[in-house]
């Protein structure tokens, strides 16, 4: 892990400044013979940095610029403006060198050889990355054990289940001990058990090896289970960067106190909370996520006959939806 401490001494592992990427899009316009050329800003004014060992969720709606960012971080796309550094390298210029130090898993596409056993794909990767025999054997043994792939090593990939294949792809991305692992929708299409096992594995990887994880996902449970930090991107630029708890506050999210009264009653009146819904003896009171529930519970219990109480944590999906719909998060419509 000496390479890693060297990079952290020089600054963050991933450093993105004023990053921008435009795409030329040709568009048909009615009444014109030629198609009109438009320039679309896929990513703009994007700045963030990630330290070695962090686990970061990179989230946003479809078309927000998530994949475009990941492609610039891995050197697949050349930025049209701004700066990216990963492990001190310029990804698009030093792409091949950087490839040795990162791992990438595209959830919906496999790097494995469809008709051949997993083992064959792994052995080719060993040669491509020039992984020493001993290190390869150690890593393979470890990942196969952790990911429970032992019985599948000699099965052709086409006969594996989606979950097994995904675990195979993750092993393939980790054999060379990358410093950063980019995961694009790693749990898409997996069943609950497979998802849970995969998250457990990723957490252990980060704990034991200090591997930095950058995760793009639609599954917010992935984020809740794994990420201490969330970057939310919308319309090509970051609209939130911070802790998951902070995201709740930022999104103006609220917790809900569900009160079951002994008898039906008019809406409860207590300071600091408002009634959202009444259904017979049951009432839903919402209060700010960062406020304490204790005084509200006490106030309710003091004035009403309460049969039961429960608190619902805010739904992160609502929080993010709230963030997306904010007008100030968007670039001016005519920005080109």
């Amino acid at each position, binding site marked *: 892990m000496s390479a890693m401490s060297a990079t952290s001494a020089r600054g963050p592992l991933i450093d993105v400044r004023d990053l921008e990427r435009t795409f030329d899009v040709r568009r048909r316009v009615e009444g014109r013979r030629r198609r009109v050329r438009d320039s679309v800003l896929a990513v703009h004014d994007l700045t963030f940095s990630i330290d070695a060992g962090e686990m970061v969720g990179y989230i946003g709606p479809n078309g927000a610029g998530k994949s475009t960012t990941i492609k610039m971080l891995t050197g*697949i*796309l050349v930025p049209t403006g701004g700066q990216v550094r990963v492990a001190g390298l310029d990804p698009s210029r030093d792409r*091949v060198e950087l*490839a*040795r130090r990162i791992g990438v898993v595209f959830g919906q596409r496999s790097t494995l050889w469809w008709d051949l056993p997993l083992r064959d794909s792994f052995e080719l990767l060993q*040669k491509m990355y020039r992984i020493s025999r001993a290190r390869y054997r150690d890593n393979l043994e470890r990942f196969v054990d952790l990911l429970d792939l032992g019985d599948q090593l000699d099965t052709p990939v086409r006969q594996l289940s989606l979950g097994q294949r995904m675990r195979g792809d993750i092993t393939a991305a980790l054999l060379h001990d990358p410093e950063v692992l980019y995961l694009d929708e790693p749990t898409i299409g997996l069943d609950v058990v497979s998802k849970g096992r995969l998250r457990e594995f990723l957490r252990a990887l980060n704990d034991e090896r200090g591997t930095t994880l950058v995760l793009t996902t639609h599954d917010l449970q992935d984020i809740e289970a794994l990420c201490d930090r969330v970057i939310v991107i919308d319309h090509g630029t970051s609209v939130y960067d911070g802790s998951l708890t902070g995201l709740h506050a930022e999104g103006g999210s609220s917790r809900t106190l569900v009160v079951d009264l002994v008898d039906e009653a008019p809406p409860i009146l207590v300071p600091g909370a408002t009634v959202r819904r009444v259904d017979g003896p049951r009432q839903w009171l919402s209060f700010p996520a960062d406020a304490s529930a204790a005084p509200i519970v006490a106030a309710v219990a003091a004035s009403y006959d309460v049969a039961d109480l429960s608190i619902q944590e805010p739904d992160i999906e609502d929080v993010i939806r709230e963030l997306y719909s904010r007008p100030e998060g968007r670039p001016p419509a005519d920005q080109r």
Partner: protein
Amino acid sequence: MAEPGPAPHLRTYLQIASLWIRAAWQYPTSFVLLAVGNGLITGLDFVGLWIMFAHLEDLDGFTLPEVALLYGSASLALAVADTAIGSVERIGTYIRTGRLDQMMTKPVPLLLQVCADQFTLRRLGRLTQASIVFGWACTYVDWTPTRVLVAVSMLVSGGLVFFGLFVGFSCVQFWTTDATEFANAFTYGGATITQYPLTIFPREVLVGLTFVIPIAFVNWYPCLFLLGRADPAGMPEAFQLASPVAGVLTMAAALLVWRSGVRHYTSTGS
């Protein structure tokens, strides 16, 4: 880490290629049938020439063995290039399916990965057929040490010219993702033209195949030298020995286009 020389690259190429061969062997019947079919189809090409000569004494002053030399050398160069790097013409598909993105995250030069991908020995059919025709035509050549040297350099340079054309024209797909046919017009199309003595075409064709797309250097000029013939089109005699120059230039130009294509690459959504 120091930039590795060509030897490790060649090794990686062979490792990728051998994995693809093993994958193809999972379906041995299909593999054999395709290889035989490939050989038969390309073989028919030459049968066509044969039939033509059954009705003609010569073609613009060239006898059947002489035309066979032209045909064999061009086919052989094309077959070598096609076997080694033919996958490059599929780059549009790789772009659409996102496979290119995956290759770009591997620590091996992209061009090498693209060329080695889906390597198939099926193309050996064409290689075998071209070798047989070329070998037969060679028995009619009046060999001298210089001619042997020119023949060897012709095959190597011819391979380079086709490498360059395959790579160069495939790069068009970085800009418009579905242009395989456009590339084929120049590679396979060019190879078809050079199966005939170039003097049967209008002079403009010869000029174009000399200065624009240098396919005439693959076989026409060096074959004139091997046959000891004066150039019927009156081009400079030095051209007959200039194949290596054409090969290196085409290759260099193609690599430049490739690099620019990769930098222009815009990937696909998701």
